[in-house]
């Protein structure tokens, strides 16, 4: 625990822990750090020892709370991640990244001929048809999706 905290304790912000090792940079891409306050510190630990996973990555972001959409995107690529909200250096709230039954606007449909890949005023939409492992189905064209990293919108 103390070894993890050596990264940089934060006063207020979000910690995404138990990220499948190797995916921290993808989580950063989902968070879109460009969109954060210029003075928010972002620390990343890659390949940290973890009892549960063997190895894991951790991302800590100051002054940010994740939108439900971003949580869904993280849940898709690393379903065992946990998200802790830090307030005044303390863990205020900790939760796992549960997938809802529908994923809206997070992924692109891998079917290039799908209507959602055309300039239409609609968001992509997938139904979660299986959870272990996760399989999604496009609500428009029925295409099944079981790998998500390359499809993140």
């Amino acid at each position, binding site marked *: 625990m103390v070894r993890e905290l050596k990264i940089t304790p934060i006063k207020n912000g979000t910690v995404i822990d138990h990220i499948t090792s190797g995916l921290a940079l993808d989580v950063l891409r989902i968070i879109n750090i460009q969109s954060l306050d210029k003075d928010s510190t972002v620390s990343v630990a890659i390949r940290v020892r973890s009892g549960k996973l063997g190895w894991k990555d951790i991302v800590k972001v100051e002054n940010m709370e994740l939108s439900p959409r971003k949580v869904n995107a993280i849940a898709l690529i690393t379903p065992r991640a946990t998200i802790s909200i830090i307030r005044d250096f303390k863990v205020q709230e900790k939760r796992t990244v549960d997938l809802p039954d529908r994923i809206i606007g997070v992924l692109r*449909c891998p*079917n290039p*001929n*799908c*209507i*959602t890949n*055309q*300039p*239409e*005023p*609609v968001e992509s939409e997938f139904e979660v048809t299986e959870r272990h492992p996760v399989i999604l189905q*496009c*609500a*428009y*064209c*029925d*295409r*099944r999706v079981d790998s998500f990293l390359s499809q993140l919108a």
Partner: protein
Amino acid sequence: MSLHGRDVISIRDLSREEIEEILASSRKMVPYAEGKKVTHPLDDQIVAMAFFEPSTRTRLSFESAVQRLGGSCITIADAAASSMRKGESLYDTIRMLSGYAEAIVIRHPNEGSARLAARASDRPVINAGDGAGQHPTQTLLDLATMQEAFDTLSGLRVVLLGDLKYGRTVHSLAHALALFGSEIVLSAPPTLGLPDEVLERLEHMGAKITAEPDLHKAVRDADVLYVTRIQKERFPDESDYRKVAGSYRIDASVLRDAKPRLIVMHPLPRAGEIAPEVDDTPHAAYFRQAFLAVPVRMALLNAVLGGAKKGG
């Protein structure tokens, strides 16, 4: 009927009971479809034909169906000339159209377009083909053809022949056959087999499925031989194509060992898959199949719109 006011986008949107109701109604529609009797449950109703892709037979059979029911049509038949060319989205076009008609029939080159249209429209939408996606009324008329010939849709042995990979009609048909408990025999060239995804879904439904790539063996115990087109574009070189297409051609010699009541079906247009000599045999059901498009579409339109008179 429970279909009243509903969208029909995929054959999977319909239960077995709903399909049975449509087929029963379709049988009653035959004399009206032939013009021998007159009915007008769609009096004063307008159905919009939104065809963003050329399709003569599907559009004309829908238009005929609407008019045989006493309704009238407004039609987008040439997408290039329509507002789509000015960059209007499908969503906006359908939204607008839903203010002009009681229902919309859509054909569009993109998969998922019919579901998008259904969301854009507050009137029922019927999918008449969305790219390589769904085409539920084709499946309904395929079923109507089999039911007319055998008086049942259960326990039939149906050979699906040809391009089972890209042929969207066979995916929906296979689903329906599984729903009714008929046996499916897959007869496809090695590179054009049923996609795993479709096969898994059918097995999940408990479908009886076997594969018999040899056409002659497949035909022997079959009740239905459902032939699809094998498209040249699917093959890297022309000689492969000709070899495969040649081995899946239906002629009198292929049908020699067939059951006397075997019917040969094809969604048409055919391109040499069935020799003209088959046309004059009792096996040929493809022209009947094409005709049944009208009563089946009448039955569906009537189920979706019938009784929905203005002010009523």
